[in-house]
């Protein structure tokens, strides 16, 4: 029994991605939208966008509403091309809006780091508490993947803990249904200060394609400003890890 196990283990070697800060997902991955300056999205493209993220005047995609579904890129004569650049995290809501002609480098440069005191406190030890507030389970699975052998953000001292009292940050997935609004508030209050609020996924950031539903209750965000926004649907684990590392000032992995 042990030998079969050791054989299976040997075959797999080490599965850790050597450096999550420089690893790139497959070229097929739908990431940062490159919007050409010439050409405008058609009315069909705008109507087909599930999160209503695509606008004209100016031509822009709001990554806080974008589900990276690719339908705008697949449309005929589309000025939009989804690259596989996945470092999408930001610290300000308005920084998530990508206008035509914005390069990825310009976009990424907008991402700020946390305050000095926060970085000194959490730089080597940051514990997350996850609240699934009506998430569809895709974000939850990708969040779980950040601690697996592949992406292993434990190597940076970042972990997911079992109790809000043990946590330094609350990471919210899902659009926040009315039935979860109280639980989200309770969890936030049970987390000791200083603490961060992280939103993962289009639904958490803006309600996403559920934004118009009367079953939601997003009043929590009126009173609590998020610290980190992680766009995607679901965000790739590398996007999540790098967004947090960048905020902590550790984007070189150091």
């Amino acid at each position, binding site marked *: 029994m042990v030998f079969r196990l050791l054989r299976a283990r040997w075959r797999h070697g080490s599965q850790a991605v050597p450096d999550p800060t420089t690893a790139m997902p497959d070229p097929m991955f739908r990431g940062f939208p490159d919007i050409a300056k010439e050409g405008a999205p058609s009315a069909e493209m705008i109507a087909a966008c599930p999160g209503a993220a695509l606008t004209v005047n100016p031509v822009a995609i709001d990554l806080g509403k974008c589900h990276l579904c690719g339908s705008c890129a697949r449309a005929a004569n589309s000025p939009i091309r989804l690259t596989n650049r996945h470092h999408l995290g930001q610290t300000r809501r308005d920084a998530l809006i990508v206008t035509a002609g914005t390069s990825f480098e310009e976009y990424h440069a907008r991402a700020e780091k946390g305050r000095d005191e926060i970085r000194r406190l959490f730089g*080597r030890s940051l514990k997350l508490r996850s609240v699934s507030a009506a998430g569809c389970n895709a974000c939850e699975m990708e969040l779980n993947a950040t601690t697996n052998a592949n992406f292993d953000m434990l190597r940076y001292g970042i972990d997911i803990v079992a109790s809000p*009292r043990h946590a330094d940050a609350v990471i919210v997935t899902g659009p926040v249904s009315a039935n979860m609004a109280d639980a989200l508030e309770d969890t936030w209050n049970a987390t000791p200060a200083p603490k961060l609020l992280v939103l993962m996924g289009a639904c958490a950031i803006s309600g996403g394609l559920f934004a118009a539903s009367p079953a939601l209750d997003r009043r929590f965000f009126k009173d609590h400003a998020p610290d980190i926004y992680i766009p995607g649907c679901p965000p790739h684990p590398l996007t999540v890890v790098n967004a947090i590392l960048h905020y902590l000032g550790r984007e070189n992995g150091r």
Partner: protein
Amino acid sequence: MARTLNILLLLFLPFLMLGIINRVKALAGGRKGFPLLQPFFDTLKLLRKGAVVSTVTSWVFAVAPALALAATFTALLIAPGVGRTQVIAFDGDIVLCLYLLGLAKFFQLISALDTGSAFEGMGASREALFSVIVEPSLFIFAGTLALVSGHMSFGELFSLSGGSAWPTVAASAGAIMLFLILLTEGCRIPIDDPNTHLELTMIHEVMILDNSGPDLAFLQYAAALKMYLFATLIAALILPADIPAIHAAFALPVVALLCAVLAGLVESLLARFRISHVPQFLFLTVALSLITLAAAIYFRGGVA
């Protein structure tokens, strides 16, 4: 000199042991895992964090973490350190040491009950059950050694001598028993899973679910100290008494870190027992302590 070294080791080795266990598990799993010094980083951060306290708790919840740490730390001062020297030593200090551990555990249990949470209550009752089985084995073992050596202090307790196979049997049975107790008190697989996210299966973890900030740091350090205590007992048991002081200074950390490596390997290879099977497993420790007692009678012709 030895006393200072003992205290220094107390401050660093428990965290290092935790770090080693995590590194071994990570290596066995083909992943990077936490850095070796992560327990230090976590503790330093927790000491600078605030705390959230339920309004339903009482002074018990407020006082328990510091009290548990103080009791455990004091117990470690009595435990045999480098070359079996102790920071605090007197005749009968074994009893005080074990009772201090009991005091720490008692306060952790009632603190868990104080929160009024159903899980913490369940975790406390499981922890209490395991203690009921493990503590007698410790007392029987220590008592046997005390009667044989004629001393009631850790410093002299471990001078196993005479009677053919007696030292070997006592050392082997004792070391295995102490290692199993290390796994139990340190809440390691196969008894408990320190990394589980399933509140219904937690034992130690669940009792500290409501603690935050410095209190959490105290409790985590106290848990690591307990593991280290059993490592010191194992070291005292298996290391010969007459090694030069320089070697002794290294031997104890080496034994402690080896215990950590072994614990890491056990965690990596075994599945966790069903909670209802854990008491059966723990009776092993009682059996081993009784073997020691029987060996004393058999090989030495009695314990007197």
